[in-house]
């Protein structure tokens, strides 16, 4: 059973009197525990697609199911609850909360979104913080750690709720190559450990090769699907 099923998704943006077609008839299916990348140049629709999958935006047309839920029909509050329960996010700029320590940033979704009891919370935070190798830095604030460390914290924050899906929009864009590979390795390891589906967008061709399934987007349309060991599209 697929985790994500998109059928003929389209998305229009209106800027003033001009309507821009950001996505056009995009269809795909993603299985659980996949490591998927959406690639394409700037403006190809990668971020738009990730926003739609992540329940942050709604398509103008088409059908989109995530974790057996028709997410197009969800209202604002239901969307927030759905995201809190099923989806983890990793952002290009890390987006850690500056007034919280590394530990508290990772703990945040358990505490403020899922209301997990204290004991269980401590266990889960300790596990992911250990997994991303940030135990030593747990009491530091975001402005006291490096970019690579911030992204590791962001990965931990995305995984701590045990989501079915983690969406990462250009997660390595602000990192040097060495750190970028380390973060991707970490994401893969986490996928193996937690059986979570990872979808990331990138326009960096060197990074793309790390994905097991690669979808190429061009001008809002799906131009190809490539798996490690074969090409469909």
């Amino acid at each position, binding site marked *: 059973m697929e985790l994500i099923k998109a059928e003929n998704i389209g998305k229009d943006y209106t800027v003033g009197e001009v309507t821009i077609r950001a996505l056009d008839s995009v269809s795909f299916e993603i299985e659980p525990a996949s490591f998927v990348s959406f690639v394409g140049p700037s403006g190809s629709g990668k971020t738009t697609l990730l926003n739609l999958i992540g329940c942050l935006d709604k398509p103008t047309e088409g059908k989109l199911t995530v974790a057996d839920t028709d997410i197009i029909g969800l209202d604002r509050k239901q969307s927030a609850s759905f*995201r809190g329960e099923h989806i983890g996010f990793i952002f290009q700029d890390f987006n850690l909360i*500056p007034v919280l320590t590394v530990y508290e940033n990772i703990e945040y*979704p358990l505490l403020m979104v899922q209301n997990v009891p204290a004991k269980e919370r401590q266990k889960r935070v300790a596990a992911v913080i250990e997994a991303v190798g940030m135990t030593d830095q747990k009491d530091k604030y975001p402005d006291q750690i490096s970019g690579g460390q911030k992204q590791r914290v962001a990965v931990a924050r995305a995984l701590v709720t045990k989501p079915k899906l983690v969406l990462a929009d250009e997660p390595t864009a602000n990192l040097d190559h060495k750190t970028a590979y380390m973060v991707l390795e970490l994401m893969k390891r986490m996928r193996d450990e937690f059986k979570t589906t990872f979808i990331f967008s990138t326009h960096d061709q060197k990074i793309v090769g790390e994905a097991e399934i690669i979808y190429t987007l061009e001008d809002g349309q799906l131009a190809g699907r490539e798996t490690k060991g074969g090409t469909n599209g």
Partner: protein
Amino acid sequence: MGNLFKIAIRNLMRYRRRTMLTASLVAIGIIFVLVFSAAAGSFKNLIVGQITDSMLGHIQIHRKGYVASIENLPLTMNMKSEAVAKIEKMLEGMPEVEAYSPRIKFGGMFSNFTETTNIRLNGVDPEKEVKIVPLLMSRIMEGEKAIKKGVIMIPELLSRGMNVKVGDMVVVIATNKDGSVNGKQLKVGGILESATGPGGRDGYVHIEDAMEILRMDEKEISEIAVRLKDFGALHNVYGKLENMLSGEQSKQGKPTFEVHTWEGLSPFFNIAQMIDIMTLFIKIMLVAIVLISVMNVMIMAVYERIREIGTISAIGTLPSKILSMFVIEGLLLGVFGAIIGNAVGLAVVFVLRLAHINYNFARQTFILSPSVQVSDLLIVSVIVIIVAVLGSLQPALKASKMEPIKALRHV
């Protein structure tokens, strides 16, 4: 909830200087309100105390219509002895009443044998009167501090104008209610300092001398002044007395008596009301200061943290929780401001109290002794905190309604 407070405190501490400035602004507003209320309250209490404790008493009971004609001091509107006895019995049965004093008020001529002038006189029972107006004796500038039979206490201005001194003999002539004129020679026993308000320039004689001058066979009382054990119970006792006396009706079915608190008898009550209105305006200004400063700082906070709002919203934080986060920040700003403002305000009031500042009002010297009631502190604090929450509500609502996708795109 505790975590929301923790995040709010850290966010406030993140912009420490701005938070301190806003809290200081709120605190300054509170200090201003407290000091003004305390000083104005002190002034008001001094004057009210002066008026009630040296002349009026707390409550007065008259025959219906007397107060409307009080300028003439009409003897025809005095209360008969049976009526007075009825009222006295009533007052003795009221535990709130500390003391009462019947008075005969009348106007007459005052002569030092070379000159004659008008005088307004109170015929009083000295023992009862001093219980009602304890400051009366302290107003006696010269002479013996007692109102004895055959003695008259005259106001200071009259003493100077007529060149009359303590120990001099004078004559008081008055017309009684039947129109016949009578006079009595009296010795000046004391000179009374003028006081602010009605009756502040009246003279005093013993009630039996008054009866003699007015040729009364039995006591006919102009007013009964009442002093309460607790001045705070003024309006309750007034209501109670009015209820009790409303049952006393004339043959025509009209009320026989009327009851007035000092407020209905002294024009200073209007000044007291103006002081209260000014205090209210100061409080409104405080509300405006708090509202604008908290709203301003919270609008800034929301604007600066749009991406953060986008992030926590994307992670799944419910709009209601985002709203709470910002409202709590506003609430804490109000609480910080209230704590600092109350502490400094109390200190300033305490220093003012120690300073014993004097000021003159109508030939009298008052010492400023401001005090702050716990209820005032609580009311001002609650107002400030509520207004701070209201001030943060609009920015907080804006934050909670923000679309995560737009917020995340914000640069």
